């Protein structure tokens, strides 16, 4: 674990009063490796290490902590600062339209059902719109999930017109007196111009209250580019971080935050419609540090 690696690095320092730059450099090297192995983007690591170094140099080694613990505390605090507090979904408009976007296979369709189930439990009537008209049986998938959780859904296979389907779906949700309308979209690459333009148009015509990026916890360095691509082109109001039940360290989250500043709203912790949790910053920090 990182703490034991740092203990080794700092074995000689337990008697000194202040952490000197050379001492800190050793510890930072271990932290850099830990963060890179946790899939944090190397530029984010560089920036993060610099901030930790600024805070660590010259600090008194507290009587009750070993230098390793002190550096870890600084790293933890800095990471908590970056990850920010969990943010709720804004449901101040009626109805609240939530648009789910992200790469292929990230977990959007599953997240749509999870969100719907959560809102239903909270007494906010949800409604689903199956706007992935491209993937084989995508509409069937969301329809099945809607049946499982007993939530209304607009699902059609009669058209390939995505914008039209989104608009009709929202209309159906309104007629259904839904409070929260969740729109599932087809997975797409942020470098796919025509599919990103499709999202820009949907956002323009429909003005969703929340556009949530659904991102996979197993993602590597490229998460930075994906987040930046989606945020720059369509604007992201929050992130749902999925597949956290894997043993991926999830460093992509740190990158997502530092690059887009978007709040983390939820984490996906499994395949079932119950497997949605609030984002817990402390747990995530422990996981990323390893």
């Amino acid at each position, binding site marked *: 674990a990182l703490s034991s690696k740092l203990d080794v690095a700092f074995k000689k320092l337990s008697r000194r009063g202040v952490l000197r730059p050379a001492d800190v450099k050793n510890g930072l090297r271990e932290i850099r490796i830990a963060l890179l192995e946790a899939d944090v983007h190397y530029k984010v690591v560089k920036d993060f290490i610099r901030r930790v170094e600024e805070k660590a140099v010259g600090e008194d080694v507290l009587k009750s902590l070993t230098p390793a613990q002190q550096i870890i505390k600084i790293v933890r605090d800095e990471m908590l600062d970056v990850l920010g507090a969990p943010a709720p979904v804004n449901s101040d408009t009626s109805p609240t339209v939530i648009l789910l976007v992200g790469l292929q296979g990230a*977990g959007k369709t599953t997240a749509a059902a999870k969100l719907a189930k959560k809102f239903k439990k909270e007494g906010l009537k949800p409604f689903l719109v199956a706007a992935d008209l491209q993937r084989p049986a995508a509409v069937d998938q969301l329809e099945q999930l809607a049946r499982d959780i007993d939530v209304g859904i607009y699902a059609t296979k009669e058209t390939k017109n995505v914008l039209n389907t989104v608009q009709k779906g929202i209309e159906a949700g309104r007629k259904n007196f839904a409070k929260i309308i969740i729109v599932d979209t087809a997975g797409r690459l942020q470098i796919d111009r025509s599919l990103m333009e499709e999202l820009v148009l949907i956002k323009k015509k429909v003005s969703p209250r929340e556009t949530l990026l659904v991102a996979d916890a197993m993602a590597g360095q490229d998460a930075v580019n994906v987040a930046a691509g989606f945020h720059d082109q369509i604007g992201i109001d929050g992130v749902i971080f999925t597949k956290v039940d*894997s043993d991926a360290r999830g460093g992509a989250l740190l990158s997502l935050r530092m690059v887009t500043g978007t709040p983390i709203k939820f984490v996906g912790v499994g395949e079932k419609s119950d497997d949605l949790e609030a984002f817990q910053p402390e747990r995530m920090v422990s996981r990323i540090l390893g």
Partner: protein
Amino acid sequence: IKGPGLPDETFFQEVEELLLEADLGFRTVAQVIETARQKLRSGQTPEEAFHHALLGLLSPSGRYLNLKGEDRPVLLFVGVNGVGKTTTVAKVALRLKEEGMRPLIAAGDTFRAAGSAQMQVWGTKIGVDVVAKPPGHDPAALVYEAIDSADQNGYNALLIDTAGRMHTKKGLMDEIGKIKRIIEKKSGTKPAETLLVVDATTGQNALRQAEIFHDALELTGLILTKVDGSSKGGIVFSLESLYNVPVKLIGMGEGVHHLEMFDPRKFVEALFS
């Protein structure tokens, strides 16, 4: 790395960052840099040094699908959730059909909503028969029946799609182990291919996936999907050097023809472009 002149420390730092950003991983990058330095000292150009250092990490095993060994090869597709297994099964099945084989698909995902339906829609699109059962049906029993069907109806290849599963879930790993044993018992031989499908956007966790799936199933190959995205898929270098399991195919798009054989040289070239 194609430039003239002798590389300095800034050059090495830039290459290190390029390789880190490609998901090679800290340890593998250190290994590559060290090997390249040695090759540079022995007189190679920077381009040669790095190309050889990277190619040297890849598995020497063959990269063709093993279809020749038996009259009805079984190809088992496994992997974690959402990586592209179902889509890849369709791509490979069509490729085999286009090469004159008579493939049969087993829609082995009887767990996820529309898991089986998705495979069936693909089967219809590509004109390949699919053995399917209602949701909740035991996947091992389905595989058993699919092998029977293949033998009784003259299909000469069986492709098995399976449900996505986290390598961290013991019950699910036990299930896939059981499916493989069923194939072995029924066919009298191991599957011709046991392929781990890996998403190119995956970071270091791909190593954990390979470790656990290889331990449970003895993988014969990897398939790297979503190479058409912005991710470089550099995790392949660590995967191959640590587990000696070769990437056989790459998926480069959602269309059914977006499948290619893995070309190590092209892959290394693409890293630096």
